[in-house]
Structures are given as structure tokens and as C-alpha cells.
């Protein structure tokens, strides 16, 4: 195994582009190193991107949004009060991953690039409308988070490409987001279903919404029908019913040891309702 420690993303990209066998980028390592130790994936080239300047920064963008570096750990996001105030749903998705120790290492981009359909940080980013900056041999492009995963363990990143930062849009006025997951236990578990809702209000009426589901399809989903079910409503019971039905209808899960198709489909609707209520309350400025 070759270990590389590039000092720029361009250098990292060049190493990856020239590498022959299995390549892994190393930031927090909470997937890569675990898979290495468990003899699941032994990379031929391990490219450590933690030492590239700026990767550990949480910064405001010019437009009032946020730029999260690729080596920012979950714990650092949780401790950033302004970020938590703007995007509690994005932060809580990240915060649910692993233990306190894992939170000291795990990153948003790592969670995204691991490609798990059950990744907890991903639905929150999709609902928020986050994008990622991708650098590769062909230059740099901006990609919506929902376009990165293409299947279990697979991403849309081409050979030599890597993500260099996550951009979260400006929160703006009267907005709120939330992420909920279902697990049989209380922590240290993997989502059987995950759901994020992000919405904006005009008075009591929802004017914008994005709903994302995790662990119910080969990739995290952006569910347009679920958003439409609540846009223009005050999140009354009829709207919640329509939201739950749309969320369940979008599911295309598998039966496995973690949950059945039937259970996942039902619980997706339950979580969509609950997450929407929390996001709505947050948009109204309530503590939820």
C-alpha cells in the first residue's frame, strides 16, 4: 500500500488519476480505516487529504451560506453554534453518526462518499440543497449532493476526482430543517429509515420544501412529490397524510436483517410526518 499526503487538491487528484489499483481518500478514516482493519477493502493507494490547507475550516460564504471543509469532524460542526442555529437538521444528521470518539473524526464528505444508502448525514444535506465542489483532471465542477451517490458503495465521481468542500446555502428567513432516523436502539446503530425535511414559511404557509429519504432505496432520495404534498399548506393533518403517503410511495427498499420492505415503507411515512413537524416548528422560531 502506498500512503500519500498531498498538500493540494490538485496534487491529490493527480495521484488518484495515476493510481493503478484500488484508491481511497483518507480524511476522518472512520470508514476507510475500519474497512482496512476488517479486511474488507485494502487500498493500493491511500491518499491522506487531511493536510491540505483549509480542509478543517467551517466558513461563511459570501452569500451567507456555509462552506464545510472535507476534514471537518462532526463534533466541530456540533460545536459551531451559528451553524447549528442555521441548519439544525444538517448538523443533527451528522451528529447521529457513531460514538463520541467517531464524532471526533467522521466527516460529511466521508459519509457521502462511502456511498451507503443509509448514510445519516446525506438526507439532511440533500434537503438543505447542499452542493459539493469536485476537483478532477478535467477541472472543477459544482454538483448537487443528491447526484453524488449512484448506488450502494458507488458515487458519480470519476477516476481522479475528489470532493474539496461542501456548500450549504444561506438559511434565509423563516426556514427550518430536521432529520430523523429510525433505529431499534437509541444510538450507535445504522438507520433503518432516515428522513430529512427542509422548508420555508410565509406566515403559517409552507412556500418551499425539500424532503429526502435515506435507507429506503439504493441511494438517498430527493422526493419531489413529498415536498409538493406540503407546499402551500399549513402542515395540517391532510397535508401530513399526503406527505406520509408520498414518502412511503417513493420507497424502493430491500428486505434485509435491518428491516423489511413493509416496515421501511411504513416508517418512512411516519418519520416524514415527524420530521416535517419539527422543521415547521423550527421555521416558526420554536425550539424543536
Amino acid at each position, binding site marked *: 500500500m502506498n500512503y500519500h499526503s498531498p498538500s493540494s487538491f490538485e496534487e491529490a487528484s493527480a495521484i488518484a488519476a495515476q493510481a493503478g489499483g484500488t484508491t481511497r481518500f483518507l480524511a476522518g478514516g472512520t470508514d476507510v480505516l475500519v474497512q482496512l482493519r*476488517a*479486511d474488507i477493502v485494502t487500498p493500493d493507494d491511500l491518499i491522506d487529504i487531511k493536510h491540505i490547507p483549509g480542509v478543517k475550516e467551517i466558513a461563511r460564504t459570501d452569500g451567507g451560506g456555509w462552506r464545510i471543509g472535507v476534514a471537518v469532524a462532526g463534533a466541530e460542526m456540533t460545536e459551531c453554534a451559528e451553524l447549528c442555529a442555521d441548519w439544525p437538521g444538517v448538523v443533527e444528521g451528522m451528529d447521529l453518526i457513531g460514538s463520541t470518539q467517531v464524532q471526533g473524526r467522521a466527516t460529511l464528505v466521508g459519509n457521502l462518499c462511502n456511498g451507503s444508502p443509509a448514510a445519516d448525514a446525506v438526507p439532511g444535506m440533500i434537503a438543505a440543497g447542499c452542493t459539493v465542489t469536485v476537483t478532477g483532471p478535467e477541472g472543477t465542477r459544482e454538483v448537487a449532493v443528491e447526484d453524488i451517490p449512484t448506488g450502494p458503495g458507488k458515487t458519480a465521481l470519476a477516476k481522479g476526482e475528489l470532493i474539496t468542500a461542501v456548500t450549504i446555502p444561506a438559511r434565509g428567513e423563516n426556514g427550518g430543517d430536521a432529520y430523523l432516523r*429510525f433505529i*431499534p*436502539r*437509541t*444510538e*450507535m*446503530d*445504522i438507520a*433503518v429509515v432516515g428522513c430529512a425535511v427542509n422548508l420555508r414559511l410565509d406566515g403559517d404557509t409552507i412556500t418551499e420544501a425539500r424532503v429526502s429519504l435515506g435507507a429506503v432505496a439504493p441511494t438517498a432520495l430527493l422526493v419531489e412529490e413529498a415536498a409538493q404534498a406540503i407546499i402551500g399548506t399549513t402542515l395540517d393533518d391532510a397535508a401530513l397524510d399526503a406527505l406520509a403517503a408520498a414518502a412511503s410511495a417513493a420507497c424502493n427498499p430491500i428486505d*434485509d*436483517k*435491518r*428491516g*423489511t420492505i*413493509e*416496515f421501511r415503507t*411504513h*416508517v418512512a411515512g*411516519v418519520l416524514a410526518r415527524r420530521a416535517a413537524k419539527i422543521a415547521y416548528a423550527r421555521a416558526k422560531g420554536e425550539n424543536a
Partner: protein
Amino acid sequence: MALDGQKTAYKYIGTTPNRPDGLDKVTGRARYGADISVPGMLHGAVVRSPHAHAKIVKIDATKALAMEGVKAVITRADFPEGLEGEDWDIQENCMAGEKALYDGHAVAAVAATSPLVARDAAKAIEVTYEILPHVTDVDEAMKEGAPVIREGAADFSVPEGLHPNVVRYFDSGRGDLDKGFAEADLIIERSFTTEAAHQGYIEPHACLGQMGADNRGELWVCTQGHWFMRRMSTAVLGIETTNIRVTPSEIGGGFGGKTTVFIEPLSLALSRKAGGKPVKMVMSRNEVLRATGPTASASMDVKMGMTKDGRITAAHGTFRMQGGAFAGAPVDVTTMLAFANYDIEHVHHIGYDVITNRPRQAAYRAPGAPMAAFATESVIDELCRELGLDPIDTRLKNAAKEGTRATFGPKYGPIGFMETLEAAKAHPNYSEPLGPNQGRGVASGYWMNWGGETSASVAISEDGSVTVSVGTPDIGGSRASMALMAAEAFGIPYENVRVNISDTGALGVNEPTHGSRATYASGLATIRAAEECIGKMCKRAADKWGIDPEAVVWEDGCAKPSGPNAGEFPPMTIAEIAGEMGGTGGPISGHYEDSPAGFSGSFGTHVVDVEVDPETGRTTILRYLVVQDAGKAIHPAYVEGQFQGGAAQGIGWALNEEYIYGEDGRLQNPVFLDYRVPVASDLPMIDTVIVEVPNPGHPYGVRGVGETGITPPLPAVANAVRDATGKRICKLPLRPSRVLAAIQGKEV
């Protein structure tokens, strides 16, 4: 209650000093199985079958042996032939012979100069399999046409006409069932299943074995019982027992699962083949879950009759259990204990021990009892509901007490079941108001406890401090308990006692720390050995004073004249006597050995409140109460710890823990992410009440407390979920998808 000749007033017993091993454990100084390293050692790795059932056609280690750093490869051919009975079973389980019998079964092992080389070499060993049909479910394995795991595995007890996978059969009971059921106003019969649950100890199996061409050597190992380890390892290798000295490490949990051998004989065989270099082996969690012992899974039918006023008139139970590819599912214990809490005149039990393509089961905390309790206590709960009776009052009405003829035969001596029920009823948890979607469950359980072969020594040091040497590894604070009992016997401070867990070279044979026996049996031996020392010290004082030894008494750590007639001498402290012992007759020590038969069982009653999310089926434990008879709590904090630990493991078994097999017979969840033991935040603080009805068979009244605590949680949680949801679920675990389906009115 006071008993003749039994102490009732104590100075040290019942206090809660820090455990002597505590500092080592919180600072990382304690040495566990994988912490033992010696110069020049090799590292072992095991090749395991990926198939549930397969003929081993060929094992080719050519490529592995050609790798740099690979020193030895072993297969079954490196072990002796001709073993019989359990010894053959253990050998076959440690290393497959003609067939791989389950996913994870060891088929070869390798020793190399580093763990990575060993791992890569294991991957380079080419095994050719011929896949055979498999069966992993107990009911399926008994059906006509089910794949036969092994012809001729059944013993004499099995009636003709049963499938060859039924290897033992149990049938016991008394009275007249027809008469008993005729007396009942209500009869309820239900069928139940429980899944295999793993002990889930945090420390994986680990050892360092060294053995030369002369078949002599040493084994450092994480185990609950190093004499068992020695006997089984040497039997598997076909060598004399005494050839191997076994030293136990600290142990990070066992719960019964570390009372047998898995990798240890392999490390010794690899060492011998590698020219006597020590070989370290450490299991991964994947290996622990696939290849060591979970407990058995069960399929059960229980029928009970009750009168309108709550008297149990008759009980019948049929229990089918699979314990993997070998005989040994604890269905014998299941039949013994199924109705043991109650005074029932007409009772009948039938048990089937069935083999399947799963790993060989190992003991797990009260082996066989929790499954039986799940069935019996669920049926009693249903009877109470249908008849409108209070579950605790009904249990009180039927409770076994001193003099009751147990459903498994003997008459009970003094026992504390009624006391646990009364304490549970009086506890505030039992009257706490419940909210929507909340429910309360009550269940009781029992474990009969054990004595077992025991050998212990106590030696007086030159300064009057004391060394206690026992042969039972300290798995739950037993060193603190031994030190307290020695301190009490000698009348010296707790801090002046040091307790060692001796190796197999230093004491007579000791059974493992199992059967809830260590505090009882090693404690008894410690007290008796201390009394021998005291007798010797009284004699030294008597000799010095020139009086009869009978005229000397031992009080508060001193020898004293027994009264004015004995003479006027200042007391001699233990330190004074010890300081002179070289010149007054030599070292002073005491020894005791026995298979003490005065053990007595422990009853427990649990009360749990749950809340079930009606939209997801997820169960939250709100409150949990354990009431259990400890006889006499030597160190009450560790007694409570045992109560709480048993409850936590039982809750896990009830809610989410299960072995999940795929269609291919492979274990789907050999990782703690998917084998879901409860995490700390899943549980509330578990409330405890220690009942003390002294056991007359122990000088201080001790009963074992380790195992009873896992027996009531399965039915207690299921009964609470029934109360919260209105649905009786007869299958464990109560995973959310199953509970939700029940709430939605579906068949589960």
C-alpha cells in the same frame, strides 16, 4: 432469620469497598488475554468454512507455506483420532474433520511471524468443498427429510422414529395431568420461540500457547476456568492433562461462553508444529459471533390450567432446542426449571435436543432457564389477565417455599421466592401510574446454583497480612468478595487481604467460575482455609503462653486467652504471631478442598414498565426493577451489579438480539452493529432490591446471584409489551417490525 451456627453480625460482610482489581482495570494495567506477549512469538489465524454444511474435499496449503514468515499450518490431520463422546465433539468443533458443520467452522490454522502475514496466509490456504444441504432451524431440523447433520449422534434416550437430528430426549413429571387440567377453570396453551443469543462479552477469545515436541507447555488464556481449559485442550491433543500449565488472564466477560475451548488447542498444536515457538491467537468479533457459543434457540409449547381464584392446577411443557451441530442444548435444564417457581401437583415436561448447522452452543447465564421462563411466565400472565387476577398475588398463591416439593424432584430448603414477590409488590415502581402506550410486566425466575470442585489456600505473610489463592477467575468482583470473607474470618482489615487467582500448577482442580458458584464455593473454601490458619495461630499463641490450644480464642485479629481460667496474657495480634512464625513452627497456611453440596438456589422477580411507539413498534424501557434473593450479600454493590447485568442481557435478548441466518445458512449479522446488544442509553438505571434469606449451606449464608437475573426479563418485557399494546407476541425478539406487525393486526 437466624440459623444455628451461622454468623449474623458482621464487621466487613455487607460493606462495599473498592474492588482490589479496580485500579488496574481503570488505568489499563490489567492484563487481558491479548495483552500477553513473549519474545519470539508467532501469530495464529484460522481458516473458517463459509458454508453451513459441506464436505471438505481437499485442503491445499502449498501457497501459504511458501509465503515468507509462515511457520506452520495445521488441519485435523494434526490431531489424534479415536476420541469419544464430548471429547470428540470438542475436537470436531475446534477443527472440522470430514465436514464443515456450520458457517465459521474452523478447517485449518496457520502460524506466522506477524498477524498480517498469518491473515494473508490463511487466505492463501485453498479448501475445496462439496456443498451439502443444510438446516439451521430447530423445528425444520426435526422434520422428515431434513438434512442429517451426523448419523448415529443420538444417545440411548431418544425414542425410535424420531429424526436422526434429535440426539437427546427428556421426559419427566409427576401427578395426573388429566386430573389437574380437569380441576382448572381456565386452560391456556401457547407456542413460543426464542432465537439464539450470544453472551456478547466485550473481550474476544485470546490466548498464547506454547508446546514443544515433548508435548509439554504452557497456555496463557482468557477463560472462566483454567482447569476445564487444561482438561479439554489436552484431551483434544491426546496428551496428559498435567503436561500443560494454564494461567488465566483477566477476563472481559464470559457469561458461560468461556467455559470451553475454541482456539486454545490450535495455538498449542501450531506451537508444537512451529518448533515450540509460542503462538498467540486473538479472535475477531466476526469469529466470536460465527464460531463460539451462542446459547440455544428454542421452540416451545406450554399448557397450564388455573382455578378462578388463581391456583395452578396442572402444567405441561414441550421444549425443542437446537444447540448447533453437537448434542448439548440445555433442554434438560429447561425441563427442570420450566415450572420450578411454583408448587404444582400435576406437571409434565418433554425436551428434545436437536442438532443443526449452527455453531456449538456454549453455556450462557442460566443456560436453558430464560427460554422456559419466557413460555411459562407468559402463559401465567395470560391466565391472570383472563381471570382478572393480580400477577404478583397469583404468583404468591402458587409460590414454592421451604418444604415445597420442586417440580424437578427435591424438596426446597429455606428459599426466598415469596419474599421477592412481596418486596416487588411493595416497591413504588409497582404502583407508578402508566401513560398512553405504556405497559407493565411482571415475571419471576429461578436458578438452582452450583457448588463444584473447589480448592483454595490461605497463607499468612510475615507482616500479618494474608494471601488468598483461589482457582476461580474473577469475572464479576469475586476477589473483593473473597477478601471481605477472609477479612471477616480473620477479623483484619479488607486492605490486608490480597486475593490471587492461581494457575493450574498451584491448587487442586477447580471448576470454572460458572453456575453462580464462585462466591459460594470459593468463598466457603476461603473461610474454611482461614479457619485452619486461625487454629494454627491459636496453637502458636498457646505454645508461647504455655497453655492448652483449646484455652485460646480468636477475636478481632488476635489470639486471646479464652477466659480468666486460661491465664492472664496480653492478646497476640496476627502480625505478632506472623512475625515470629519462622521460629515457632514455620510458615502458617490453611487449605480447603471440597465439592460443596450446600449450595441453594436464588429466586427473582422483575417488574418492568415499557412504552411502545404505536407507529413504529419500537419499545422503550421506562423503569426496571430486579428483586432477588442473595442469601447474604457479601459486597452489595457487586450483587446489584449482577442483578442489573442479568436484566440488561435479558432485555437485549427480549428486544433485539438474535442470530439471523440467510437462505444460504450463513450468519447475516456477525458484527455488533447488527447483533444488537443494548447500549447504555437504551436502559434506565435498573432498580434493585436485595432479599436476604440466608443459605444454611454457607457459613455466611451466601447464595449465588449471577444467573437468576437473566431469567425473568424475557417474559417480563413480553408481558409489558402485551400490557402496552394489547397484543401477545410469542416470538422473541420483540424487534420493532414484529411488534408493529402485531399492532397492525398481522400474524407474527
